[in-house]
């Protein structure tokens, strides 16, 4: 009856394939067709440049508050690149690049950030949920979707995103627990970007890794270098395949860094040092990947330059289209739409009342 030890056979893997100096672990290098490599690169570059453009638009007052993704391109794109279009994705609010990968248009992102509900309009057959702002809460939706996929005997998977701050939320733990109990085909991608607004990762949890939280819920947890798109892709592919083949859920911790502010309303200088940001700049996921592609001989400086120009053009065109669209989105009555499948009587009455007010105000203005 003495105190004894219960041996729990567990470990957390750490995966890094392409380090910050561009050195490659050849043995671990995933086999990615050139076409996909270039598509990933393009998506990372687009995510970065679009983020930069959004920031300047925000500073000019042309869009409102948003959460920049710069620095996290590899961690989100490496993950969704492992999905098929029919798989599901439940994003948080810092997955813009991944959303674009999944088919969301830049116009729709601009519309949302400019304060138009129309930006949330999803493709009728789309399987990417809209942005979820309450931290960690979307993890549960991925679990429910994954359960439904399994129940309907489809071989799709559901991928839920969250951040390091999200791992402190109850919904994350409840979701992980349910996913483990019901063995659903889900993959949880935690973008550990080191900061939850002003709270550093060290103050979020005493756990040595975030990935180890998976172990308590009976699922594998893996920590990857989130700025290494090859590692993220390799880990995500493995997790997605496990889920697809009935092997249950996985949690992936992508160690990355939030290069910008939490949102444009935040000033990170209040709580973190420039040196830290500078150090992470050296681990830039985009530059690292570009070096890898150049070494591989699939990307030249000329190609990159012309891609840069092409992307800027695309962003400009999307911006012009969205600003054109906004001019037509002046009817305030749309606020009454999409509350219910059928508008309740009292809401119809309120809308009519408001219509009359609008007409009266118009009359006054003319008079």
């Amino acid at each position, binding site marked *: 009856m003495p105190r004894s030890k219960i041996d729990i056979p567990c470990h957390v893997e750490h995966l890094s394939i392409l380090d910050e100096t561009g050195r490659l672990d050849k043995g671990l290098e995933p086999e990615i067709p050139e076409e996909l490599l270039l598509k990933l690169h393009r998506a990372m570059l687009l995510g970065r440049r679009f983020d930069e453009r959004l920031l300047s638009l925000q500073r000019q007052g042309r869009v409102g508050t948003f959460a920049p993704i710069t620095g996290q391109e590899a961690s989100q794109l490496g993950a969704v690149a492992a999905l098929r279009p029919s798989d*599901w994705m*439940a994003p948080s609010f810092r997955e813009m690049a991944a959303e674009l990968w999944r088919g969301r248009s830049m116009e729709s992102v601009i519309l949302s950030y400019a304060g138009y*509900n*129309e930006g*949330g*309009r*999803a*493709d*009728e057959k*789309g399987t990417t*949920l*809209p942005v*979820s702002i*309450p931290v960690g*809460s*979307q*993890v*549960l*939706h*991925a*679990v*429910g*979707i*994954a*359960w*439904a*996929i399994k*129940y*309907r005997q489809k071989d799709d998977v*559901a991928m839920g995103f969250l951040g390091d701050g999200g791992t402190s939320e*109850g*919904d994350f733990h*409840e*979701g992980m*627990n*349910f996913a483990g*109990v*019901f063995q659903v085909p889900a993959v949880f991608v935690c973008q550990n970007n080191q900061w939850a607004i002003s709270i550093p990762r060290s103050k979020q949890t005493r756990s040595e890794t975030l990935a180890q939280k998976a172990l308590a819920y009976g699922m594998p947890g893996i920590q990857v270098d989130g700025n290494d798109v090859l590692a993220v892709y390799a880990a995500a592919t493995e997790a997605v395949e496990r889920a697809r083949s009935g092997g249950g859920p996985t949690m992936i911790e992508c160690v990355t860094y939030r290069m910008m502010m939490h949102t444009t309303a935040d000033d990170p200088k209040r709580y973190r040092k420039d040196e830290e940001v500078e150090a992470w700049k050296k681990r830039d996921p985009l530059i690292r990947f570009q070096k890898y592609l150049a070494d591989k001989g699939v990307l030249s400086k000329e190609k990159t330059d012309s891609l840069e120009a092409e992307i800027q053009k695309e962003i400009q065109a999307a911006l012009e289209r969205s600003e054109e669209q906004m001019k037509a989105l002046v009817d305030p009555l749309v606020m009454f*739409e*999409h*509350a*219910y*499948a059928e508008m*309740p*009587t*009292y*809401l119809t009455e309120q809308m009519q009342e408001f219509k009359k007010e609008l007409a009266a105000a118009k009359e006054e203005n003319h008079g």
Partner: protein
Amino acid sequence: MAKMTMVQALNLALRQEMEKDDGVIVLGEDVGVDGGVFRVTDGLIDQFGDQRVLDTPLAESAIVGMSIGMAVYGLKPVCEIQFSGFSYLNFHQIECHAARLRWRSQGRFTVPMVLRTPYGGGVRALEHHSESREAFWSHIPGLKMVIPSGPRNARSLLVSAIRDPDPVIFYEGKAIYRAFREEVPEEEETLPLGQPQMVQEGKDITMISYGAMMRPTLEAAKELKEKEGVEAEVIDLLTISPLDDAMLVESAKKTGRVVVVHEAPRSFGPGAEVVARLVEKAFYYLEVPIERVTGFDVIIPLFSREQSYLPGAHRILRAAKKALST
């Protein structure tokens, strides 16, 4: 027709909807093998198996969050929160997601789920097992809040709630789970959500209530008739939100005297909304101020005193007599 308790009638609704549609999934704490602590889901796991009836871990937010995901995918989850006093843990998922996904996605993703949960006092239970917080849910745009008052309408409303394309909070009065039986037909029966029901017509006074409070309200109406010769018109709201006021307004215009009854606390309770609507739409027809007979603005006391808190027929009767006195 079989005479059933509300528990049996709800069970019938679940069973028949599950037979009809394999997208209907029941989930919650102890709903499977145990058949639910009130036995509403009794026997469902035997008939449909553990892929249709899920005994979940003990986590209210996850039960609801997972139901949201299922509903988004196209299933029709009917989750049970064991007592409404524990549903605050999942309030966030309802307010932030269930009620908003249709709106957020501009109609692409909808959440056709039902959250069933027992509410209300009168069964000598522990703390957190007796309150009546329908006002919380009724304040949320995008959500429906339904409360049946007896076996027959409970069955019909639950069927409608399961088929409804929007999320529904479905409160089941513990006090009336087994208090009385009604004829409930085996064949399908539904009631539209969002419409009150005229329980009895009358010309002298309008009495408006719902849920477990319908019984004392009807008792008071009966006594008014027998002892005072007063003909009360009694309306059962059935759906608290969205509240359709047409029948209420028409009745108030007819009688000019109104009593609203609920066991939820008075301030900002459903009665406040009913009164506001009548003031907006029937003010000039009202002969006297509208009476509210409700729970007090306190936490419902532990059970030795809960009957003092709950509106009974006597309190309702006194309020009605006051409304009739001038």
